[in-house]
């Protein structure tokens, strides 16, 4: 029984492939057993451009995760991202037939289908339709309409969709390793599970996951997803900006960003210089610290401003009581918090472990938040299925049991 409720989350990121293995406890608690990570190649802006190399990287990460957690990985949940992913809110509406007044499960399913009856490009595929609110006969704020009396059932959904073929590439890099896929979750939704607790979701919060190639963001308010999006700009862009602005090789720019860079301007002593030592193929250089920070600041500020404009279209940022939560590898950038605060005019926090136990080093690292969030998402999904009915859950458990053993 020990390893039955094991969940694995895999994120194929632009800079690294990260696999997290977690174990579900009796009261819905979650313990991280181990993490596997491998630097990724063949991925650009969150999307796979070289399948063979990316598959290898996924293999390395999974192998490491298996060793660290002492568990056999059979099936995983996967996070997907990319500039092609789009989202919008849509309302579905159905009229309950004349002969009954009570709303049942079927009606709820039907209204979800109705909400999906919208025009998305033919090559796109629905990733999520996340329920926001139900309305029964115009009465707002109904959380669960099953069993209520009413003539008309409406429902608001947040719908996420993306280009099918491009989503398939990420999934293939995992399937090629002989691993089954349980859930496909959009990156921002997964990160939010790790970054926010229920209380923050109710109060309202923006989660910004700044990764290597893309920045994912999601807005929660009143406990539901109000908005989400992907900006195909990330840490790689900062490195690229530095490399171009200071005329240094990209690898040095990357290192400089992590070791010396800060997102704040005006903090460095005027005239302070950073000496870059010479290296093979690089003759060494002295650069001004303020110059470096200016380049970083411009990019980071722009990312936040773009997101703020997107968020403002949907909801006033001041309605978000829990403020902004930053996660992803780039949130390790020095002083990034202050930039975000000045842009959003909201309290900004760095991600922390939300109801998960495990090695401290893992939980405090925002690089792992997507993978951990995936585990939480899958766990919640499983719990929902089990609630659906005793028979259903038994069948599910047995089939799940076999699936996992095979």
């Amino acid at each position, binding site marked *: 029984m020990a390893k039955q409720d094991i969940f694995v989350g895999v994120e194929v990121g632009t800079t690294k492939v990260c696999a997290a293995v977690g174990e579900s406890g009796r009261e819905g608690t979650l313990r991280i057993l181990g993490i596997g990570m491998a630097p990724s190649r063949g991925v*650009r*802006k969150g999307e796979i*451009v070289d399948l063979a190399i990316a598959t290898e990287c996924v293999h390395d990460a999974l192998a490491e995760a298996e060793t660290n957690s002492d568990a056999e990985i059979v099936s995983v949940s996967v996070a997907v991202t990319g*500039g092609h992913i789009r989202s919008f809110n849509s309302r579905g509406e159905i009229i309950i037939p004349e002969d009954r007044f009570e709303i049942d499960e079927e009606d709820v399913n039907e209204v979800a289908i109705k909400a999906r009856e919208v025009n998305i490009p033919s090559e796109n595929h629905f990733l999520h339709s996340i329920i926001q609110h139900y309305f029964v006969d115009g009465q707002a704020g109904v959380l669960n309409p099953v069993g209520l009396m009413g003539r008309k059932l409406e429902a608001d959904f947040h719908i996420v969709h993306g280009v099918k073929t491009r989503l398939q590439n990420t999934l293939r890099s995992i399937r090629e390793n002989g691993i089954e896929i349980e859930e496909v979750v959009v990156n921002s939704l997964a990160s939010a599970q790790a970054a926010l607790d229920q209380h923050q979701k109710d109060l309202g919060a923006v989660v910004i996951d700044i990764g290597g190639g893309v920045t994912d963001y999601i807005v929660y308010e009143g406990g539901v997803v109000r908005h989400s999006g992907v*900006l*195909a*700009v990330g840490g*790689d*862009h900062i490195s*690229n*900006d530095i*490399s*171009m*602005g200071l005329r240094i090789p*990209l690898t040095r720019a990357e290192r400089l960003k992590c070791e010396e860079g800060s997102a704040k301007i005006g903090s460095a002593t005027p005239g302070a210089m950073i000496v870059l030592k010479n290296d093979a193929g690089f003759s060494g250089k002295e650069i001004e610290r303020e110059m470096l920070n*200016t*380049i970083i600041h*411009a*990019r980071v*500020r*722009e990312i936040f401003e*773009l997101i703020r*404009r997107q968020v403002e279209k949907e909801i006033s940022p001041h309605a978000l009581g829990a403020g902004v939560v930053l996660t992803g590898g780039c949130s390790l950038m020095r002083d990034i918090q202050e930039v975000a605060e000045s842009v959003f005019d909201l309290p900004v926090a760095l991600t922390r472990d939300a109801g998960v136990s495990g090695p401290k080093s893992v939980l405090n690292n925002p690089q792992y938040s997507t993978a951990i969030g995936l585990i939480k998402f899958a766990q919640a999904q499983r719990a929902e299925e089990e609630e659906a009915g005793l028979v259903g859950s038994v069948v599910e458990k047995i089939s799940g049991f076999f699936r996992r053993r095979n």
Partner: protein
Amino acid sequence: MISYPRSSPSATVRLRILGIGNAGVHLADRLAMSGDAGTDVVVMNTDAQSLTSSVVTQKLALGPKVTRGLGAGGDPEIGYQAAQESLGEIRDLMKDVDLIFLCGGLGGGTASGVAPVVAEMARESGVMVFSLFTSPFSFEGRRRNAQAAEALGALGRQSDAVIHFENDRMAELAGPRSGIEETFAAADATLLSCVASLAGILGGGAPLPVGLTDLLSALGGGTSRALFGQGTATGDNRAHEALEVALKSPLLDRGRLLNESHAVVVHLSGPPSFAFAEVAAIMRGVTKHVADAANVFLGVTTASDPSTPVQVTILGNYDREAGGDPVATPRRSTEPSTQIAPASEPKRKPRPLPIEETAPPSGEEPKPLFPEPSEPDNRPVAPVRSPSVDAKPRPRTKPAPKSKQETLQFESVARGRFEKSEPTIVEGEDLDVPTFLRMRGNKP
């Protein structure tokens, strides 16, 4: 030869509408039935049966000896001979009028053969001629189309203005699923409303009339194709809705073809409550579609009946020969088949048309019979037309690609490692270009 001086001082234009051939009779019938009693309508046909069933009281059977009242059998030469036989009666029709409208469907025998003769006769009598004709559907065969094109060319030389409706375009007025009857009816209805509104434009005065010269300037020019759109509406938003319907006419190609027209007549009619602001709003909507160099003639009439709907009529000519063609042709799929088009004078001869064998020197060319060279009344129009050719907004397309290329080059230089990846364009900016570079570019 009886010549009547034009009674120009009189305010109203004495108008006579001649329906020629089966289509013309049909149209005249509808016009007569539509109730405008003041209109002077005459039908003429080689087919006695069609004349008998017509409700129009003034009838002229053409060439009773040539055709024995059995029709022209689709041969313009028979039509021509019939017209020659009835020359005296036709000439009589030119008495006491200033302007005649010739209406019909070209391509068959009667209209194609008779109409040029009638137009010639009218010109001799000093009567102005407006020719409103439909050309056959392209599926009606090459021969009919060629006959129509030939007749149209002749009409272009003899008429003061030719309004030419291509049936293929008219078919778009009816839906793709509609029956053939329905489609013909839609085409007829358009021609009818065009005749009716032209008559209305010339007949009605206050407060802002459209003069005959305005019409000639807009519609003259020989062989071009008619642009015609009409919409009526009532209610709060009547001005906007009427304009919308008028611009939606397929003959205007949703307003796009107006841009190619050198002169446009806009006629608005409405109830006494028709407001100045509404007129201004409609005109703003129209001028958006009209080329800068084009002449826009506005006419407004108000009826005394308050229940009169607001009606917007847009008339113009789209002259393919004047250079609009190469630009406009690729847009419309129906175009190529219909373009067996009317020749302008210099081009007419070399065109190998079947009609030249069947109807030797006589049929399609009234010229040798009437030795005096046809005075081209279109001449005053010509200067208007040629500058508009130059003024056509052609160069607009040229600078665009150039500037585009420049930006592209700039971007590819500045994108660094993302040069080969799909660009990330958000809010009009390429985010792969370093932010500090873009900010620097925006500042000065």
